[in-house]
């Protein structure tokens, strides 16, 4: 099994509305896949289905060949799937460092965590990650006081600490300045190689920089898949983007 993540005819209906329609795709171990699509295409919903937040009406999700369809979220996470949310989501009343520490705690059960402090290797790792996401100077600040960009990085840091085999990133550069985006690309590059990534992204210059293969969704369906240049010259993709913001 060389594919890290396989989606097999995945479908979800909200009432009569089909938000994700018969999506099949396969992401190789270690690959970074970009998921593209206009607003409302169903990208976030697709991630919700993979990570167990939204139950699939039909189809299967497999991680390294293991069927995890409709498992509870924490079991899917334990099976090696981590995600970053479109609206950055961190533990707002904990400090930056505590956020990373929580992500570094192992085991799902409360009883395994009835112990004090982190192991020395975990502590070192936490310090490393805080450094990596560039928040060392503010590590004892509560997360609620971080700027938008810092919050995004913290959430990426949480993912690095969690160290899942498959990483789902929902718009990691949304609302960022050019410099911030650059730094984010840096963090994502670090994740690359050891992890399999699925990234939703709108910023085409960013996509060009990081993408190998792009999958394009429109109205819940996959309409194209290929390299950056393939996608940019694909007629169906152009048509789909007409009337919306368009590929820029």
């Amino acid at each position: 099994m060389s594919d890290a993540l396989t989606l097999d005819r995945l479908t979800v209906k909200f009432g009569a509305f089909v938000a994700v329609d018969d999506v099949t795709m396969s992401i190789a171990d270690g690959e970074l896949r970009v998921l593209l699509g206009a607003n409302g295409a169903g990208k976030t919903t697709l991630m919700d289905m993979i990570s167990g937040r939204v139950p699939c009406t039909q189809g299967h999700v497999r991680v390294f060949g293991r069927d995890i369809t409709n498992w509870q979220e924490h079991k899917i996470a334990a099976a090696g799937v981590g995600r970053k949310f479109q609206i950055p989501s961190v533990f707002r009343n904990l400090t930056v460092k505590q956020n990373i520490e929580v992500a570094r705690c192992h085991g799902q059960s409360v009883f395994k965590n009835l112990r004090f402090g982190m192991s020395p290797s975990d502590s070192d790792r936490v310090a490393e990650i805080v450094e990596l996401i560039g928040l060392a100077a503010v590590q004892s600040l509560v997360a609620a006081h971080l700027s938008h960009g810092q919050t995004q990085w913290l959430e990426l840091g949480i993912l690095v600490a969690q160290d899942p085999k498959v990483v789902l990133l929902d718009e990691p550069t949304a609302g960022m300045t050019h410099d911030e985006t650059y730094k984010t690309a840096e963090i994502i590059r670090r994740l690359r190689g050891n992890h399999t990534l699925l990234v939703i992204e709108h910023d085409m210059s960013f996509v060009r920089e990081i993408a190998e293969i792009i999958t394009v969704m429109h109205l819940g369906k996959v309409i194209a898949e290929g390299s950056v240049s393939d996608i940019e010259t694909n007629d169906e993709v152009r048509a789909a983007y007409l009337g919306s913001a368009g590929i820029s």
Partner: protein
Amino acid sequence: MDLKRKLQLAAYALFILSLFAVPLFTDDFGLNRASKYLVYGMLGLSIALTWGYAGVLNLGQGLFFGLGAYMMAMSLKLMSPTSLAQGSDKPIPDFMLWNAEPDAPIELCCITPGSYLWIPFQDQWFGVAMGIVVPVVVAGLLGALVFKNRISGVFVSIITLALVLLVRLIVIDAQPVTNGFNGLTDLGFFTVFGYEFDPYSREMYYLVAVSLAFVLVAGRLLADTRASLILQAIRDDQQRARHLGFDVPLYQTFFFVVSAAIAGYAGMLFVLVSEFASPTFMDLSFSVTMVVWAAVGGRSSLLGACIGAILINVIESQVSETEALVDAWKAIIGLIFVLVVLFLPRGLGGLAHDFVDWLARRDREKAHGLAASSSSPEREVKQDV
């Protein structure tokens, strides 16, 4: 060890030491009253554990307190001299005779419907064990049901509130087994290896004080575990925590159960000290009062909530000695609550914590000479001692 940690330890040590200094200043009557306040302190702590750390506001903590109290009281009732003087060679609670059919046999098995439930309580230690086990089982079932179904926030509060009222009604209704409204009075003394704990004695006070010190230290240790950090993370964002692989309902239920066990234990101690158990323990107003104690003391501070409970009760007892203020007390306590919620949302514990932060910052600034620290107190960690 940083300054904060040192001061926190000092605060705990000072509080526990002063617990044991109380007998130097008061007589047995005062000690009995003080014992009750310490039990209230334990309740305040149990509220803070779920409210502050899990974000679960339990408006029915009286349920667990009451269950613990009744379990203990049942055993002590059977040890009371009057229970041995009801014309049977085995102890029978007096109220059961009043509730019995005229021709019912005078035996626990069948004197009133349901009286057989009392049989194992002839062993005092069975009552003690049930005083913990019953609250734990009830909290475990309730927690599993509520948290597995992802019920959170105010809905948990409403469910706990409804449940304590329901159980209160059942207890009142089951007159032949519980003596209904009147509760269980005329109890025997708690006896350990032949030693009888007189409620108006130093020994009883020490039993309560040692218990509170133990619960405080254990609670503090629990709050320092990684599990507690994860619980706080869950409080902030359940969904995020789930996607990190934590079994959220298990964490919430675990801490809910620990809190219930503490409340049950407090209920048992209260029965030893006050010599009765009554459905008023499950009155809504009592459960709400506990929340006020915790709010004033600091809901995310175990020691703060404990001190808050004791402080309010000490003030109340002073006030009740002034005739004119007795009726006004309810209004005063209501006012204090509103003021605290408005101006001191983290209670006295939060205030102490800010003060420590200020000290720590001043220290740092001294150490760094003129280099001003950029962090203001509100921006520091919000978890209190």
